[in-house]
């Protein structure tokens, strides 16, 4: 096992394209870290730099204490799981698992022991004699994972390993990978575009956009305290509501409604000149129907336009002062289309962003 350090790492293609821009990331020994972001954000490129499949343009990559910029992939003591599984189609499952071990010239019985053990962990014993084409997508995925674990590397690199699976299998395999990590405790870098995957699996999450690291932290830190507009919108499902308000002393004005603020939020409003725009953000699940009892909350009226029934909860689409917002309410609230309701948001759940820098001012 080992730490992985991205030290001011750059990856450029030609003169114009900077795929990874000054990435600084220290991944602890045994940590499970998710690199997440929309497609083209540089997360896969960063992972491929770690694997040695891409040259590093600038900066350093360390595995443990060793700078590995110029070390071949095979000598980095890493194993990688690819999006397409990348199984060797002409080899049986057994040979797929054993290939890396044979190349390392391990003894035959040691190879056999490791392959059988890996197959047992992943429930592949029955399939060892089959070729990949005779396996289902989920089984292939397990072979790809198995190929990585039998190597007993110090770092696992996973590039969207679940994206080719159907929704149900994805949830199952997600749990399987999480269990595997608990059992083996191997440092893992996991790339995904799916924030749900990142939230459920990662000890920490690194959010990337346009090659730049936006924020790194535990799933809860990112959820509770996003540092900028992008992270706020990217993490959480359904995603955060945003609306433009104007500063008015220690308060904000949203359309014709005055939002009375306290604490950190009041300070943030106070720091802006009166009449300046700010963006407020609040998560659908933090919206409540106001009953006049809640203390330290902002309230505003809304008109219900669409109600999506989800069983236990309802997604309520409503109009507030020219902004469309989504609220996630318990379905026993009996909100009906056309209702005029009063929404309340607890003060500490209200995020305030600078519309120009997109940085968080409060929340």
């Amino acid at each position, binding site marked *: 096992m080992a730490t992985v350090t991205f030290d001011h790492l750059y990856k450029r293609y030609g003169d114009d394209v900077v795929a990874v821009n000054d990435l600084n990331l220290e991944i602890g020994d045994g940590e499970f870290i998710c690199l997440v972001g929309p497609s083209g954000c540089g997360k896969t490129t960063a992972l491929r730099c770690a*694997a*040695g*499949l891409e040259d590093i343009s600038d900066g350093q990559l360390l595995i443990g204490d060793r700078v590995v910029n110029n070390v*071949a*992939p*095979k000598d980095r003591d*890493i*194993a*990688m799981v*690819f*999006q*397409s599984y*990348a*199984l*060797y*189609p*002409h*080899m049986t499952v057994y040979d797929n698992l054993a*290939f*890396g071990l044979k*190349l*390392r010239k391990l003894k035959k019985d040691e190879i056999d022991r490791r392959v059988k053990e890996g197959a047992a962990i992943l429930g592949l014993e029955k399939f060892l004699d089959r070729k990949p084409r*005779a396996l289902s997508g989920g089984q292939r995925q397990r072979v790809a994972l198995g*190929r990585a674990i039998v*190597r007993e590397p110090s770092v696992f690199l996973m590039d969207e390993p679940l994206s080719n699976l159907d929704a149900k299998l994805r949830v199952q395999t997600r749990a399987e990978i999480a269990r595997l990590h608990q059992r083996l405790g191997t440092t893992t870098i996991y790339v995904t575009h799916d924030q749900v995957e990142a939230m459920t699996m990662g000890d920490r999450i690194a959010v990337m956009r346009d090659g730049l690291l936006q924020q790194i932290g535990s799933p809860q830190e990112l959820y509770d305290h996003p540092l900028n507009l992008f992270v706020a919108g990217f993490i959480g499902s359904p995603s955060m509501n945003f609306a433009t308000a104007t500063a008015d002393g220690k308060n904000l004005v949203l359309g014709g409604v005055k939002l009375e603020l306290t604490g950190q939020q009041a300070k943030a409003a106070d720091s802006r000149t009166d009449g300046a725009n700010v963006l407020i953000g609040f998560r659908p699940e933090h919206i409540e129907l106001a009953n006049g009892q809640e203390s330290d909350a902002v309230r505003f009226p809304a008109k219900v336009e669409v109600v999506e029934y989800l069983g236990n909860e309802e997604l309520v689409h409503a109009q507030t002062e020219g902004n469309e917002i989504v609220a996630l309410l318990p379905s026993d609230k009996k909100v009906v289309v056309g209702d005029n309701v009063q929404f309340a948001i607890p003060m500490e759940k209200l995020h305030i962003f600078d519309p120009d820098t997109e940085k968080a001012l409060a929340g």
Partner: protein
Amino acid sequence: MTAASSPASTPVTGSGEQSRAPGHGFSWAALLFLGPAGLLLAVFIVFPAIYTAFLSFNRGRGGEFSEWVGLDNWIRLFTQDPNFLRIGFPPSGALWNNVLWIIFFVSFTVLFGLIIAVMATRVKYEAWVKGIVFLPQAIAATSLAIIWRFVYSPDPNTGLLNAVLGIANVGPLSVLGNPATVNWALIAVGIWGSVGFATVILSAAIKGISSEVLEAARVDGATEPQIFWRIIVPMVSLPISVVAVTLLVGVIKLFDLIFVMTTGGPGASSRVIAFSMYQEAFPSGQFGYGAAIAVVMLLLLVPVMIFNIRRFRAEAVQQ
């Protein structure tokens, strides 16, 4: 063969058992559809083949069906004709030369084709490399043979080979005039002429290999030669066999290159089967004897055809 028993005509779904069309037995409708094609095959392929086999037991002098000689042609062919087969050390004769062609021409053409294809996919000027390697394919075999006759010419003023050897103070050598070198010189020309074909087909196959599989092997610890032998070659084994079989069939029928470059010489040392067949049947007028050689050619092709048919069946089941 009936329509219902042909695997190609029955759609095979999934990986389960091959389903047969109903009415597996005889059908007049099937005969109606297959009749014209069957008739053409019978007249132009089956009948001439049988007639040739028949002719091989005859003297057949002057093209006339004159005298039944039993196994005489066959006995002479395999025991008394050193130009066709001389068993000894080393063996020689047209049949043996063809064996050399099959082994060395086919294997080196495939090997060079593979190596060039793999290397070409890694450079920017891939299209140029493949274009140049493919160029000999666009030249008629006779022109190609003439070009190489000049290259091999013993006169250093004409022959490129001897001009180059002359710089190193070797030669001049007459590679086509020496029984020890003539076959190798011809095989080299054959490889030069066919490597482009192998390159183009194998290069397309290699491009079909997902780059992630190669990267997975790289991360798994494979060196580039190991990736070539243990990943790329097995993954393109089917196209390799297609190329090898095509070359094999071509080489069993090889004639034009030999005819133009050496006319089977010096002596008969560069003859191959097809050349012997022509030489015995036409200039020598021994049609029965030529027919026996033609039957040998046909028999050599039978295993290749069986292999081909089996492979197509296996593919049909896999899909």
